[in-house]
């Protein structure tokens, strides 16, 4: 029974609408992929279905590694202390600090109508969360010791929705901290300025904007279905094709499209690259840099690489 409960908890993300791999979002992604291929790409229905459920993708050695990493990481995450405490601690700390500045009074905007406060908080939360994802993701590529961790994700040679979980546990911790800091900032600032009417517009327990992101095919970002948007829209929202391009090994695609939902950050900071369906993309990294399938290498190499980086720094100094 205990074992059964453990297995259920490992698979809980598929039944949790707050998670990207929620079964409902996966089905919608399949539907969007099908419509894209049949309606926009004028593909025969049967061929479209064969392409969507491509065995070579879903049963590739890289994808199999994804599945194993998903389970191993879920087990590891059971041992990591709950994030919620960190979030509350950060929010409380900032909230208390805000009382010590003399520029703006606590509750300064407390007479604002609740619907406006909730709308503003919903938007702010989405923007700050998305921006922090962009920033941390950019750092993951720019700093050697962070790249040593993040390359686990880029070692995937085929992309499936579960590739989103193909991350080193250290990256999981960093992203958890990122989430805590962005939420802590938003919560403390809003409660300080607007009082206790602060709330979030949600659907099935998730920020309504994140919900929209999910039902419009967030799972296709990590897939072989290259859906692109109109060019003008790709300046605002990252299309699945743009994110697939981020995984491409082509030199011109390196360090592009760090954004999660919004493309505007890439546009502002000069890392935007519009999708280009004339090119076939190849994913993964050189064997000398990271293995796509060897689990021991996937979990251990980042530590060895970081050690090398640290030793190098000390040697130089």
């Amino acid at each position, binding site marked *: 029974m205990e074992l059964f409960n453990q297995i259920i908890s490992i698979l809980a993300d598929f039944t949790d609408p*707050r*998670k*990207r791999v929620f079964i409902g979002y996966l089905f919608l992604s399949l539907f969007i992929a099908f419509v894209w291929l049949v309606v926009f790409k004028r593909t025969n229905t049967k061929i479209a279905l064969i392409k969507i459920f491509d065995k070579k993708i879903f049963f590739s050695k890289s994808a199999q590694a994804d599945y194993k990493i998903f389970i191993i*990481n879920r087990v590891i*995450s059971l041992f990591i202390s*709950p*994030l*919620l405490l960190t*979030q*509350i601690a950060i*929010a*409380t700390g900032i*909230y*208390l600090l805000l*009382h*010590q*500045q*003399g520029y703006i*009074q*606590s*509750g*300064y905007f*407390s*007479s604002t109508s609740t619907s406006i406060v909730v709308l503003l908080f919903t938007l702010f*939360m989405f923007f700050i969360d998305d921006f922090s*994802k962009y920033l941390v*993701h950019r750092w993951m590529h720019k700093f050697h010791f962070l790249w040593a961790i*993040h390359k686990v*994700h880029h070692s995937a040679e085929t992309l499936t929705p579960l590739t*989103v*979980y193909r*991350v080193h546990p250290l*990256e*999981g911790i960093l*992203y*958890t901290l*990122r*989430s*805590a800091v962005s*939420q*802590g900032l938003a*919560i*403390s600032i*809003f*409660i300080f300025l607007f*009082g*206790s009417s*602060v*709330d*979030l517009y*949600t659907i099935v*327990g*998730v*920020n309504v904007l*994140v919900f929209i992101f999910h039902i419009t095919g967030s799972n296709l*970002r990590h897939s072989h279905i290259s859906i692109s948007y109109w060019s003008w829209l790709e300046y605002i929202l990252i299309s699945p094709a743009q*994110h697939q391009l*981020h995984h491409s090994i082509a030199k011109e695609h390196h360090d592009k499209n*760090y954004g*999660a939902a919004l493309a505007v950050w890439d546009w502002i900071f000069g890392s935007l690259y519009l999708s280009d369906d004339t090119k076939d993309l190849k994913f993964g990294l050189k064997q000398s840099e990271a293995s796509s399938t060897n689990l021991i290498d996937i979990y251990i190499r980042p530590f060895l690489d970081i050690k090398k980086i640290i030793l190098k720094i000390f040697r130089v100094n």
Partner: protein
Amino acid sequence: MLRLKLKCTSFIVAVSMIGSSAIADGHSANYGPFPITLQSYSGEKNNSVSYTGQIARHVLHDSLKVLAGQGNGGENSIALEKEMLSYFSGSEKNKAIIAPGSKGEFVVKQTTLNEISSGKNIEGKFYNGSMMAWPGSMKGREVALQMIKKASIANKGVDAENGYNWPQLISKFTMGAMAYSQAVDNYLDEKLDAGTKPNNKPYKDGAPYTGKEHSWDEGFGYFGAAAHTLSLTADQAYGVAKRKDMASADANGDGVVDLKSEMIFGPAYYAAAFDRSGSKTTKYLHTIMQAYVDGRKVITSANGAILSDGERQMLKNHASTIESNWEMVLAEAVFKYAGSVYKDIVKMQEDGADQAKAYNAYVKHWGELKGFSMAIQSGRNNLGETADTMNDLILFGPVTLDNSYVTGVSSDGSFKRDRRMTWNDYQFNMLKVQKLMTDKFDIASLVNNKLGDIEALAGKLGIAESAETD
């Protein structure tokens, strides 16, 4: 016929068994009546419970609070002070009950104090240790007398300039300095010792109760709970105290509320108030009440003999439960009103707010905060550093409209306000008061929890997507 006889006999046996068990355990749900156990007693009475003196003091307190708000800015000050002192310090008989009085369907049985207990006052039972929370380095009774004097010259009990609401300050301070202090630092403390008020002798000559029975009853009386409190929910107890729930108050169904046994007064009212609000996870009212009832049963079961060490230890355990829960109720009150003061400061800044009304509410809540913070310092425990920190955070007076606050008393007896603090800083202090209460006392109701807003919102946001990476 035989079957009918058997049925009747069984019924009579069952009824008599139920009846005898009810007498044996002293009517388990209610605080009394309890049988006479004093062996030397030969009088007519058959109930050993008596705590009318304490009920009289609750009534004196309630009446004093009403009087404290009746000043007209100085004109009636001499007469008003005299009147207030007659309730606080006097002992003349036949004083009218100013509060609690009848209200609509809620009909109170007594209209004069003499109908409850004659010749009682508050001052004689008022905490008289140092009260460092109040400016002027005075003792408890001096502080109360100063508050009464200041109330008599104030307009409707409010000193807006210094930010004092006298009825609230007097009332909340008294709830601790009289009721809490007397219960936990006297009747449930030294009077439980072996050599004091023994159980094989009358409390005083001619009394129908033993030394220990009456000590415990008086300790119960200060809590201000109705005898049938265990049969009431927190909501019902609250309704009784607010004089809104006649059905719950009138336990014997005689159509009137007997203040001596059916009313809920201050300390018990606040215990109920925190149980029915905030997190709704606390059971202060019933925990304290059950400890009182159980303690009384320990004494009753000794049947007039000297209590053994084991029995006294049981009593002390019940006393400890009462003390710790009562202290938590006071800490909950400090916590709640620190949150109110925080919110009132926000309201005062709001565009279009009725400034005078908002400031009045702020001063009222601050009076409750300060009064309860002084109440919790009037108990048996020396709160030491916790009290110092609490006093430093709450200050001698609230931050007033020009950001100054009371720092001491001048030689002419007026309050000095020679320091200033920003609203943000004072709100920060209120947050620290709430944190201090949760850190130092095991409180859980947490009404007006300002940091709780953060926890609630963080809980709603959850940790979705945190481990998902692109």
